[in-house]
């Protein structure tokens, strides 16, 4: 870059003691992967791009929903329904045309995570579920990549840095030293159910961007072997020291091959249920008989499904509305991932043990994938 231009754009940070052109050049050369372009990813991406991070990868397979706009500040009303990763990349390109942006509109899994992460120097984690968190952590451990962690719920958030040795002790810790065992699926509510104050991921995501920049440039003291907990209501920041866990019960993949075959759904305690049906089974069933299909997502969650018709009862209002469901038909519930719909089955069976109800396994995400494969195989879909 033309030195004069460089100074014009980044002069305010180049002027800083301990930063200078050297740190700026390190940023230009850095490759950062941001996983999840949601509440945490948006602010992290904005500041990383603004600061002149040379190459930024964005992983997200979701589309923008109206309920995202309260906290995911890269998106506007006209972006609803568009893919987050490419929409975010477009915005960032206009903020800073000099940086390179790479878009991964895929669901991160054990088959592609290592290849994607290997191309980058640092990973900033803005994912929204435990399976992906443990998977990203394990991939970073295997590939020796620094991981900048952040997580939020309601009014509280956590942030930290894993896989970097503390300069004094040379101790390295990771997410499994913090939480060796994943929580039971039903014990930790998601932001969809429990809510989150919009500004909170803004603060935690910005801390993640700051930690990422500190790691790249070598300024200050990153949160190695530490996590902070922040409460937006009380304004209290707590810092906790993490040490390597002595809990040897945790089952983590030790090699890349083990990683590729590791089942994170199973690991995170998701045991499966006889009330679940696959997309394929649902497709076959709906062609044979009359089903009563119910979307239990909250209003405005996307995508809508076009292959079959359905009613809507958000899970948050499900208990009051369950009596309106005609229990004579076979009932199929679906949501985004298949979790909330399974809860709906359980609630309904509690009230009406005689009815026949199922949950669509993997939710609309899995249905979308199923339809994609059908289309690839050029099989016609009857609506």
């Amino acid at each position, binding site marked *: 870059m033309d030195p004069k231009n460089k100074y014009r754009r980044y002069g305010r940070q180049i002027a800083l003691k301990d930063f200078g052109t050297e740190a700026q050049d390190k940023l230009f050369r850095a490759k950062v992967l941001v996983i*999840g372009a949601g509440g945490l990813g948006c602010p992290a991406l904005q500041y990383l791009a603004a600061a002149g991070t040379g190459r930024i990868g964005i992983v997200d397979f979701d589309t923008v929903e109206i309920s995202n706009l309260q906290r995911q500040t890269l998106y506007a009303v006209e972006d609803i329904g568009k893919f987050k990763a490419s929409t975010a990349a477009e915005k960032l390109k206009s903020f800073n045309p000099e940086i390179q942006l790479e878009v991964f509109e895929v669901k991160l899994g054990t088959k592609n995570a290592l290849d994607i992460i290997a191309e980058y120097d640092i990973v900033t984690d803005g994912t929204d579920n435990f399976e992906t968190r443990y998977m990203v952590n394990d991939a970073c451990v295997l590939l020796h990549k620094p991981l900048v962690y952040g997580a939020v719920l309601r009014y509280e958030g956590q942030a930290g840095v894993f896989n970097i040795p503390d300069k004094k002790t040379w101790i390295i810790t990771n997410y499994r030293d913090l939480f060796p065992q994943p929580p039971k699926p039903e014990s930790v509510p998601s932001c969809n159910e429990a809510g989150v104050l919009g500004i909170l991921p803004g603060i935690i995501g910005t801390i993640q961007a700051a930690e990422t920049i500190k790691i790249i440039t070598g300024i200050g003291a990153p949160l190695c072997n530490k996590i902070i907990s922040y409460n937006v209501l009380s304004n209290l920041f707590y810092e*906790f*020291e993490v040490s390597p866990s002595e809990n040897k019960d945790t089952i983590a993949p030790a090699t890349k091959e083990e990683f590729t075959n590791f089942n994170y759904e199973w690991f995170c305690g998701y045991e499966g249920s006889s009330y679940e049906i696959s997309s394929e089974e649902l497709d076959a069933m709906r062609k044979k008989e009359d089903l009563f299909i119910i979307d239990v997502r909250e209003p405005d969650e996307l995508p809508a499904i076009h292959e079959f018709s359905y009613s809507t009862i958000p899970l948050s209002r499900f208990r009051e509305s369950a009596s309106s469901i005609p229990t004579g038909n076979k009932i199929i519930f679906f949501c985004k991932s298949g979790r909330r719909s399974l809860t709906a089955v359980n609630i309904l069976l509690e009230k009406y043990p005689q009815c026949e109800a199922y949950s669509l396994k993997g939710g609309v995400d899995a249905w979308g994938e199923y339809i994609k494969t059908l289309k690839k195989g050029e099989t016609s879909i009857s609506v």
Partner: protein
Amino acid sequence: MKINVLAFGQIADITGKSELEIFQVNSTGELTQVLEKTYPQLKSGNFLIAVNKKIIQKNTELHNEDTVALLPPFSGG
């Protein structure tokens, strides 16, 4: 012997407040037993324990005026 307990996230929902004082316990094991008796929902064990801001993994001796934090995992992003 007084222990100050800080509850975070879902743990504070269960205890109803974010700060508690627990008396006459000598270890983190005894402390969690006392807490589980008062708040049975804590039995899921779904939190990590920090003694004076240091996260611990096994039963740890406590001293008067120690601060014990109970942190649950979050997954939101």
